[in-house]
């Protein structure tokens, strides 16, 4: 095995429940951003915990920087983890907590002070770190969570759903920061259940669903895969038959169902179908009142992909 992250049929069980099916993939050394995409419950956090050395795999092999990560200081000193959730010890200030985290990462003296300054400046919290966690906003706590992962300048930064709860401005700031870190040689692994979010950051994606790695590739490849998913559209029109007739002639239909006041079309490629539909409406060929996509959420797409891969 070689590369920064190497998984060989790595799996994880929580008792009788399979959290991660045997998974094999690798990520190369050097900087870059990789997206870990999947709906809630897909196994992203499980995979992240295995990669970060919190949980040892139940089967297979995990190597980070060429070594087993669980309770391995040589690996843990090179990983930064930003978990999801908002858990901090009560009764201590963020600065004191960060200082402790820096010391537990092997930093001390002037080097530690510089690392603290740098990390807090990176997340824009240099003037507010003295506050107690209880008096911080969610966004501030998210920044502190990020800064603790940057203190020791890790080579691998793992973020679990980092954009949850952030306002659009903070989201853009975080994206810019992650891009900067990747340019500086940090391998960033960021999980999300929103494709658009990940697509803005990276062109390399791991697709996870129900504890299985479904696909691995560029955003374009994943999009292509997703486009194969037939999308259901409810076309509300004065005449359902007219819609059906037009769709059969012009659309790549998988299925069609007539309903009162319209029709439900199952379309193979919505990205080519929808412009045609728009043109037809503009030309007055279709008596369309409104259009509702029925299953454009990611869960439905993943459901389709799983069926497709069985």
């Amino acid at each position, binding site marked *: 095995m070689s590369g920064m992250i190497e998984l060989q049929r790595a799996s994880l069980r929580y008792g009788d429940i399979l959290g991660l099916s045997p998974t094999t993939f690798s990520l190369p050394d050097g900087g870059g951003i990789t997206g870990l995409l999947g709906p809630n419950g897909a196994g992203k956090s499980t995979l992240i*915990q295995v990669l970060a050395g919190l949980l040892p795999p139940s089967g297979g092999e995990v190597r980070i920087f060429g070594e087993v990560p669980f309770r391995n*200081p040589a690996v843990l000193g090179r990983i930064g*983890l930003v*978990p999801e959730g908002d*858990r901090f010890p009560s009764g*201590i200030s963020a600065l004191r907590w960060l*200082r402790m985290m820096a010391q537990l990462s*092997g930093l001390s003296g002037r080097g530690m002070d510089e690392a603290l300054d740098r990390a807090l400046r990176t997340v824009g919290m240099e003037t507010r770190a003295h506050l107690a966690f209880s008096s911080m906003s969610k966004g501030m706590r998210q920044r502190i969570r990020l800064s*603790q992962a940057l203190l020791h300048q890790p080579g691998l930064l793992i973020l679990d759903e980092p954009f949850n709860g952030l306002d659009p401005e903070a989201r853009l700031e975080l994206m810019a920061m992650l891009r900067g870190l990747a340019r500086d040689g940090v391998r960033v692994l960021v999980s999300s259940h929103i494709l658009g979010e990940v697509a803005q950051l990276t062109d390399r994606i791991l697709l996870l669903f129900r504890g299985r790695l479904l696909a691995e590739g560029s955003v374009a490849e994943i999009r292509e895969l997703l486009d194969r998913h037939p999308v259901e559209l409810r076309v509300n029109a004065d005449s359902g038959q007219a819609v059906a007739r037009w769709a059969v002639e012009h659309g790549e239909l998988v299925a069609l169902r007539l309903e009162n006041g319209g029709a439900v079309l199952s379309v193979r490629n919505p990205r080519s179908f929808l412009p045609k539909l728009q043109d037809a409406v503009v030309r007055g060929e279709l008596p369309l009142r409104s259009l509702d996509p029925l299953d454009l959420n990611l869960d439905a797409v993943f459901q389709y992909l799983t069926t497709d891969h069985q």
Partner: protein
Amino acid sequence: MSQVTVPSPLATLRAVFIGYLPRVFQARGWILAAMPLAPVGTAILVSILVQAQGGRFSSAEALKVFHEALLKVLLPVMALTAAPAGVREDLEQRTLPLMLVRPAPVWMYPLSKGLVWFAWGALWLLVAAAGLLFLGASTESILRGALALVGLYWAELAFLTLLGLLLKRGTLWGALYIFLFDPLVRILPGNMQRLTFMHYAESIAGSRSSEVGVRELLAQTQLETPMGIALAALFVFGLACWAACGWKLHRTPVGLSGKDAEG
């Protein structure tokens, strides 16, 4: 990217101790402080009132406060209160994983966190022991009493922390051990007494065999263990418990379970 520097066990202990020290100033810490002060303070108040009315408050009463209230009841309750505040609480509140992904030796965390609560509790136990001076207790008995209190608190805190890591209802099992097993074994014959915390604590504080009266008919003749050995026994037992806690935490995978890790 920086080179990995692994902090030494001592640096880990120092970092966690200093990091978590302010937590003793929360409600739990002040409750812990009040526990040993309450009986001694009350006894001092009573003695002042008795003396003001021309009565006499004997030093035997001071020793009774020490043995019956401090040693047997309040100190174990203090240990039961403080033990979950260490690693157990972090496990339950899921604040531990971010410490576990550091290169520091994980096995030092239970002791490092426990030391914060040990130091705080021991401080107030010493203050309470010093308060016995006002009740007429001799300096020697107070010194021995202070050693007994600190030694017993050390051992019980470590033991209860270990139970908290090994068992789901560690506090309950700990309470049963201290308040049921300890007194029960005390009335069993021979060397069984050596299996109790109280044997060593009373060996340090001074034997009360002469005070065992008719109401304690079931009590066996109290065994004696030299003070130094009794103190060493409590210290080594506590250290062994902290080591077992460290071993257990090092071996146990601790993840981000619950709603924070749903994916």
